[in-house]
């Protein structure tokens, strides 16, 4: 049974512009399949090897003034913390952000790939790509690699001509439009705080504080989230990084230590 490789051909003709524009560009190389006797088993093992449990917390929500995006910065390999300073909010272009959850390499590569495709679209059509379009591009690419072990749980947030846009895209091929999302192992904790404090008409500062608190609470309860809580705001002029606070300091800001009376016990020797 011949393995069907048509899904792996790159989408060089996505924008449907005249061929003359694209003939000069080399098509992006498609990924090679390894030469094994038992490809299915190899796939399964590859998936198990790269299967990170999406140990992270990221969230994004739309409100009156735009989109607020926040994430922690811890990378964990099982129980070991490999880094406390990972950039999980990826800048696709000056008015669109993507968040990283799942495999770091997968997210970084495909977001950069998406940035390239968005720029090509802009050049071909003389206008910026919409958030809807960008998220659809990414979702289609990920759907083609479905079942091959990619692990990506990302949110695409941006501001286009129709206003703020937020989409959740994952490596299973799902794509959802919504107002509030949180992705990762710490997401239940973040949802609790986010859903409780959310109002559509918040100011930028209030929204930033809500996002920061939600990330902080998730890092407190979830072992695989921690480090620095970074908060970005996407407005009509593009994205702006608002803050990057170390979560340990946030804890003692929100819950300062009460000096307690220490009893001195006399020990008989």
């Amino acid at each position, binding site marked *: 049974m011949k393995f069907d490789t048509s899904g792996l051909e790159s989408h060089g003709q996505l924008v449907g512009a005249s061929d003359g524009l694209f003939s000069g560009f080399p098509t992006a190389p498609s990924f090679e399949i390894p030469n094994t006797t038992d490809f299915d088993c190899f796939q399964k093992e590859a998936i198990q090897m790269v299967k990170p*449990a999406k*140990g992270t917390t990221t969230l994004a929500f739309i409100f009156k003034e735009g989109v607020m995006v926040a994430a*922690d910065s*811890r990378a*964990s390999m099982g*129980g*070991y*913390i490999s880094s*406390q300073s990972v950039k999980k909010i990826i800048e696709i272009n000056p008015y669109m952000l993507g968040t990283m959850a799942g495999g770091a390499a997968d997210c970084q590569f495909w977001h950069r790939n998406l940035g390239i495709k968005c720029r090509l679209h802009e050049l071909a059509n003389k206008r910026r790509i919409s958030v809807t379009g960008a998220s659809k591009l990414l979702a289609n690419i990920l759907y083609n690699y479905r079942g091959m072990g990619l692990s990506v749980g990302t949110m695409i947030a941006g501001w286009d001509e129709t206003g703020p846009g937020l989409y959740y895209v994952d490596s299973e091929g799902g794509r959802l439009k919504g107002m509030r999302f949180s992705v990762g*192992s710490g997401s239940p904790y973040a949802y609790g705080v986010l859903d409780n404090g959310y109002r559509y008409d918040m100011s930028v500062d209030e929204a930033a504080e809500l996002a920061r608190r939600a990330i902080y609470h998730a*890092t*407190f*309860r*979830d*072992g*695989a*989230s*921690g*480090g620095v809580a970074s908060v970005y705001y996407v407005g009509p002029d593009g994205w702006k990084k608002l803050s990057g606070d170390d*979560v*340990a300091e946030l*804890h*003692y800001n929100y819950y300062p*230590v009460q000096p307690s009376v220490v009893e001195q*016990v006399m*020990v008989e*020797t």
Partner: protein
Amino acid sequence: IFEYNGSALVAMVGKNCFAIASDRRLGVQLQTIATDFQRIYKIHDKLFIGLAGLATDAQTLYQKLVFRHKLYQLREERDMKPQTFASLVSALLYEKRFGPFFCQPVIAGLGDEDKPFICTMDSIGAKELAKDFVVAGTASESLYGACEAMFKPDMEAEELFETISQALLSSVDRDCLSGWGGHVYVVTPTEVTERILKGRMD
């Protein structure tokens, strides 16, 4: 199964004193349930035991040990020496060789003439005596590195406290499953000092 609850324990020897420290997190895999869980228990004024590993086994094992020690006190009318206690723990653990307690104990005490004694064991009772420091728990590899780097022989109580606290806090910062503060006991022949450390709560 040792990584179900998460733990970090370290004991260090100083000049006529010892210090034993643990983290304070109790979790169920990645979720944190409590941040004030006690892992170090006092057997008597000069003998402490810390139990790393599965929390339920640690609590049960502690209750059995307290029972045995109380019986010993009634019969012998004195406290147990740390070396004897270590043998007791080792025997209790080996009794369950084919259905073990999933704990790693760390025993620290002042023996004859107030000479500090520390030892650790694996879950079936293999004693490991050390002259400088012993570690146990999910963060044990990081703890080995930190202790090796920071330890000096014959430290006084205050310096020992600083060293063990730094070693504990920096190691648990590299472990998802332990941390959320620290609990340090420093024991000298005349006093026992218990201190709680402020750590990273993530």
